[in-house]
């Protein structure tokens, strides 16, 4: 993957695929129109390079030598500690291991997780494509043994202050989170940190935990653990609205202790939570604010507007709107975080805008061709259709840059909205890597006599390796409007759009 990224930067390379002759890679090769009878014949044990380029000879040679360089570089850096090949030998190497982080291919992940649980070790199961029957089996086993199985398809967790997989460095405090959404946890926990408060634990359950078949096993065990935890004073739940019977089960569990809870069922009815005596988070940001208020014993209010510079922002929106040329009227939200994109669509809908998407709120707004945006569009670029053969956009910005440039060429586009998710797991210089794309897009539009407005927010903290403040400053210095949360970024984008006459 990293190799592909480096190769793509070689001038003259339009597309490149480097990998083993697996069926998947062959399919991808076909998709890139690079298939040949030779490649068809390859087996999964053959390594091959396919390049789409005008200047055959020169470019291909360069690609091959770069591949050699990169592959041998990697081998060198691994000449340090022994890396056990099996779970059993890994446990031999670390007999008091208490967590296994599993990100191997889905078809093998469940068996490995089972081995860990049988050894009494908690599991962070990042892998997806795990059959749901296996998820149920694992969670039942974990429940029996009082262990965590965070996942499958769990991208984010913070245990004992340690970010696991894609997660932020958030200060310690007394708020505990259980969430079925990766970037949902990231946004809520980051904002809690930004407000000067902190968390005890952020337990991920994986996206399917609240389905009827799975029954919310991990969410309920997580809630109970936080209720028993002497350091946790406030409990936060984040997920998409669960199946009805699961909803009851989960919310009833909250009643088992006096600790106040803030529940955010993204896009769900806030009255549901209230009916069970919990506070309802109206957005991810609002959820964080409410949790912090509870932690501090302050009044709990709804935070659903700009939290600072409200007047300046409204003025700026009106001014920006005058710069657009005739015909520019649409918003394109290009997201790396799925839940953040989903929240964007929710907020837009509340404001009367139905966004097209590859993950639409209503089926009639599903894009026919996810590569062709239409009217107001919000894309989750982390979804499968965009990440085939490429790393996730939180790691590799090249797809997002491509889409930014494509949208810039659309004469009806006025506003481009971007999320920058930082923290561990994410690209260490996501802002620096995307900025050239933004600048190029702007220049292109200007040449065509159009004005583009970029709006962004950074999901993370100052303690993250990328440093929130540094990221925000860099973006602002480059003329990007930076808001303190997804919700506010979406609202500002909507203000821009609605200010266009």
């Amino acid at each position, binding site marked *: 993957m990293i190799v592909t990224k480096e190769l793509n930067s070689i001038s003259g390379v339009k597309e490149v695929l480097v990998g083993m002759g697996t069926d998947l890679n062959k399919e991808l090769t076909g998709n890139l129109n690079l298939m040949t009878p030779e490649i068809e014949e390859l087996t999964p044990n053959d390594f091959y390079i396919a390049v789409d380029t005008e200047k055959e000879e020169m470019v291909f040679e360069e690609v091959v030598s770069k591949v050699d360089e990169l592959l041998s570089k990697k081998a060198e850096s691994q*000449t*340090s500690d*022994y890396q*056990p*090949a*099996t779970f059993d*030998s890994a446990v*031999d190497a670390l007999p008091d291991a208490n967590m296994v982080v599993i990100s191997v291919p889905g078809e093998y992940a469940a068996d490995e997780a089972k081995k860990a649980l049988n050894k009494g070790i908690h599991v962070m199961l990042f892998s997806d494509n795990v059959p749901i029957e296996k998820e149920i089996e694992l969670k039942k086993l974990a429940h029996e043994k009082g262990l965590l199985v965070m996942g499958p398809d769990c991208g984010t967790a913070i245990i004992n202050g340690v970010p696991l997989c894609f997660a932020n460095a958030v200060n310690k405090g007394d708020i505990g989170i259980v969430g079925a959404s990766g970037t949902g946890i990231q946004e809520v926990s980051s904002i809690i940190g930004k407000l000067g408060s902190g968390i005890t634990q952020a337990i991920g359950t994986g996206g399917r935990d609240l389905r009827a078949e799975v029954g919310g096993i991990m969410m309920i065990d997580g809630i109970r653990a936080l209720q028993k935890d002497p350091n946790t004073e406030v409990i936060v739940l984040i997920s998409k609205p669960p199946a009805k019977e699961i909803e009851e089960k989960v919310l009833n569990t909250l009643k088992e202790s006096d600790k106040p809870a803030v529940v955010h069922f993204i896009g769900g009815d806030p009255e549901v939570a209230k009916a069970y005596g919990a506070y309802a988070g109206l957005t991810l940001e609002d959820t964080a604010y409410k949790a912090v208020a509870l932690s501090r014993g302050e009044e709990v209010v709804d935070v659903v507007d700009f939290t600072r510079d409200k007047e300046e922002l409204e003025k700026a929106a009106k001014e920006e709107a005058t710069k657009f040329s005739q015909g520019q009227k649409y918003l394109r939200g290009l997201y790396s975080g799925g839940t953040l994109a989903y929240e964007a669509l929710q907020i837009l809908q509340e404001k009367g805008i139905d966004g097209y998407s590859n993950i639409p709120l209503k089926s009639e707004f599903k894009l026919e061709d996810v590569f062709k945006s239409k009217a107001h569009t919000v894309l989750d670029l982390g979804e499968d259709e965009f990440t085939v053969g490429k790393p996730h956009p939180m790691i590799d910005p090249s797809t997002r840059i491509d889409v930014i440039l494509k949208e810039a060429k659309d004469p009806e586009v006025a506003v481009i909205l971007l999320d920058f998710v930082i923290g561990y797991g994410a690209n260490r210089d996501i802002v620096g890597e995307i900025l050239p794309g933004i600048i190029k897009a702007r220049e292109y539009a200007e040449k065509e006599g159009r004005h583009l407005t970029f709006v962004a927010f950074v999901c993370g903290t100052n303690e993250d390796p990328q440093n929130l403040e540094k990221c925000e400053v860099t973006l602002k210095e480059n003329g990007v409007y930076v808001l303190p949360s997804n919700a506010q970024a979406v609202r500002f984008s909507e203000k821009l759009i609605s200010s266009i006459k």
Partner: protein
Amino acid sequence: MVMEKINAANDKALEIILNGQPSLVGIGKCLDVVPGMTEKTLLHAGPPITWDKASGPLRGAMMGALIYEGLAEDEESATKLLESGEITLDPWHHHDGVGPMAGVASASMPVFIIKNETYGNYSYCTLNEGLGKVLRFGAYNKEVIDRLKWMERVLGPLLKEALELHGPMDLKTLIAQMLQMGDEGHNRNKSGTGMFIRAIAPHVAATSFDLQDKIDVLKFMDSNDHFVLNLTMPACKATLDAAKGIPYSTIVTTQARNGTEFGIRVSGIEGGDRWFTAPAEYIDGLYFPGYSQEDANPDIGDSVITETAGIGGFAMATAPAIVQFVGGTPQDAVNYSTSMYEITHGENNVYQIPFLNFRGTATGIDIRKVVETGILPVINTGIAHKDPGVGQVGAGIVRPPMKCYEDALQAFVEMLEKEGLV
């Protein structure tokens, strides 16, 4: 159920291996002491092979042996004889022995006699000729033949007498000490050879031979760092053979190559006698100046019996200098040895790695673990030139072909299916 049966069988096999007590008890004439040997037999390294399939070094060695025995005059007549079918070619392993590189042995050659004192079984191996243009690399010129004659007339009988004066020599202790001194018993043998010469020298001096013979013998051994390889190999052979034929055991008791094919045998499959073979690999290593991969012969020799018994590549961490041959670091040597624990049934009780807190070397290769982990045994070995008679052109690291292991696993399962156990 079946897993317990297999694990119990493997426990037994490992116990036998660890209890082995190989001892050098004598030297004798191949025809006299090696079971099943005849005047028209040539023993060789690796699994069974025919003349037409043999690689350069093996062919050269076979022709050389015939010339040495007086059965042929030259290359041409030797070739004719070998094509005629009059000469029986058989693996050393079918005759309780092992041979390094081409490993060719004929009736008149002197052989070391090793006894596994615990279980009473014997093993045999020729004496090491030295480096460069020697029979085991396929050389067969006058110099080679003359040297073989000297070994037959002087070296063998003199050492035989010296050994009688010394008494049986404990090879297990010798190997254990070698490992503590920078050797691994396959491709690095310098300290072991030194210890052997030191032990035998006073007794060489005390034999009835001429002073010049004694001097020649001592000089001969001293000039060849690998002299003791021809003792470590049969020591390992004798240790492993005692563990052959344990029903339901998946432990590997033989690994060997003949320059064309690599073969393994498994304790619990047909009494440990059935070969599973596949084309031998080329070695990944460093070449002596003037040579390159194009000059190399595929993997050859019975010396991989050392890894099979838990030394050689499995003890690479005791001989970090070896890793230079793959352009690696001392940590690589440690990592190689460490990775072997993933594929063995247990650890050695006597052969230890100081660097790993004196942990015993990985011992008892389990075919199930090799297939499941995809980790193949790592072998330290020399690289022979593909043409007969040129000699060693480099050294490095090689692995067996996975096919041998997969075929063995399949055969094992089929065997259990026939018995109705799975």
